[in-house]
């Protein structure tokens, strides 16, 4: 295996180095721990280096993990939610046993910028907007052609589940449009989340972001300076 010395006791490894596979698979198992079969991520590329220490071998890995495509219809409607995570791991191999010392994962950067900027597109003022008009590509992209039908079906389930009533057909159409936008928005939030959270249909899915903020959130928390409170005493040793 070709390598360049980086520091005393350290070697740089090629991506295909077999010695990295065992710690990489261990890291993957740790990443997938608690997940059901079918929802586990798979290993993409791996690269890294190893440092020999008195305690054993310390592996520093950088790996891409491919999350499986989303299957829950309440969480994802568009077939675009496959997510690539870029992870760094520090793994110690001591007497043949792997120990995960550090893990840091996040979505691959190339997708992040576009997703972040598209998250903050405003809702339209036009209350006559339909589902197909806000995503014109739905009309041409065969992958998305059934989106309108799917979203209408999920919206009907939402209306039934949460006992929604709307004043008019126009209002219902507008809410369907907001709901569809929110589903796309939820998927973007999902793609940008670094944890295990799932985002999708909730009882607030037919509200615009502004409506949600106005009705349910508390702007005073950031607008008004909090009254100075006495600091709690430090805890004594238990």
């Amino acid at each position, binding site marked *: 295996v070709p390598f360049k010395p980086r520091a005393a006791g350290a070697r740089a490894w090629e991506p295909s180095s077999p010695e990295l596979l065992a710690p990489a698979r261990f890291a993957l198992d*740790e*990443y*997938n*721990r*608690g*997940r059901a079969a079918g929802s586990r991520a798979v290993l993409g590329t791996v690269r890294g280096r190893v440092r020999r220490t008195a305690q054993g071998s310390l592996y520093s890995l950088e790996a891409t993990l491919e999350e499986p495509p989303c299957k829950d219809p*309440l*969480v994802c409607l568009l077939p675009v939610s496959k997510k690539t995570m870029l992870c760094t791991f520090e793994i110690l191999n001591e007497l043949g046993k792997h120990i*995960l010392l550090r*893990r840091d994962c*996040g979505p691959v950067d190339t997708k*992040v910028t576009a997703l*972040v900027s598209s*998250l903050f597109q405003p809702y339209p003022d036009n209350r006559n907007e339909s589902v197909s008009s806000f995503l014109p590509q739905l009309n041409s992209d065969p992958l998305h052609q059934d989106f309108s039908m799917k979203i209408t079906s999920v919206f009907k389930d939402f209306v039934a589940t*949460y006992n929604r009533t709307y004043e008019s057909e126009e209002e219902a159409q507008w809410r369907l449009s907001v709901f569809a936008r*929110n589903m796309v*928005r*939820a998927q973007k*939030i999902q793609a*940008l*989340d*670094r*944890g*295990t*959270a*799932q*985002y*999708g*249909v*909730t*009882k*607030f*899915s037919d*509200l615009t*972001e502004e409506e*949600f*903020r106005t*009705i*349910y*959130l*508390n*702007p*005073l*928390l*950031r607008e*008004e300076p*909090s*009254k*100075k*409170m*006495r*600091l*709690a005493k*430090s*805890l004594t040793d*238990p």
Partner: protein
Amino acid sequence: APPEWDWRKKGAVTEVKDQGMCGSCWAFSVTGNVEGQWFLNRGTLLSLSEQELLDCDKVDKACLGGLPSNAYTAIEKLGGLETEDDYSYQGHVQACSFSAQMAKVYINDSVELSQNEQKLAAWLAQKGPISVAINAFGMQFYRHGIAHPLRPLCSPWLIDHAVLLVGYGNRSNIPFWAIKNSWGSDWGEEGYYYLHRGSGACGVNTMASSAVVN
């Protein structure tokens, strides 16, 4: 701090409540904290009145929002909190009908807690659930799992929702806070939100406070 803690398992947390179409999260966060403090100091879990705070805390703005620090002061000045049964939640402001004779709990003081999440965990495990405020980014669509939004999307400077820390632990090696929300049990994980712990996610460590019951 112990590696994990859950006050729900120890009987210190009432059922998940629903603030309805009203920005009264601050009141629910504070009553949840006082419920925990009263339980830990007096041994009885009582479900306490948010409506009393909406109606009688004149510094805060009922459904338009409020601050936990003001609410503690209001509870002290009023002379305590009535129970949920005696002063039930309506979800909109009404005339104050608090009666000191009906108050079932009191508080003596309130304190601000550390911004260090390890110290917060230690405090929680020893002293009880903590009132905190967070940036609610993504919560409109949250269903389950541990949320860990990118920091620029969930800035600690844009706090807009008050909630209650009731526990913490790790799931699949990911550290989390268990957070009681006030949007009903048909939201999130039976009304609870799980947020990444240790990274200052969504400003969870910036406005931690508690009532003091002697």
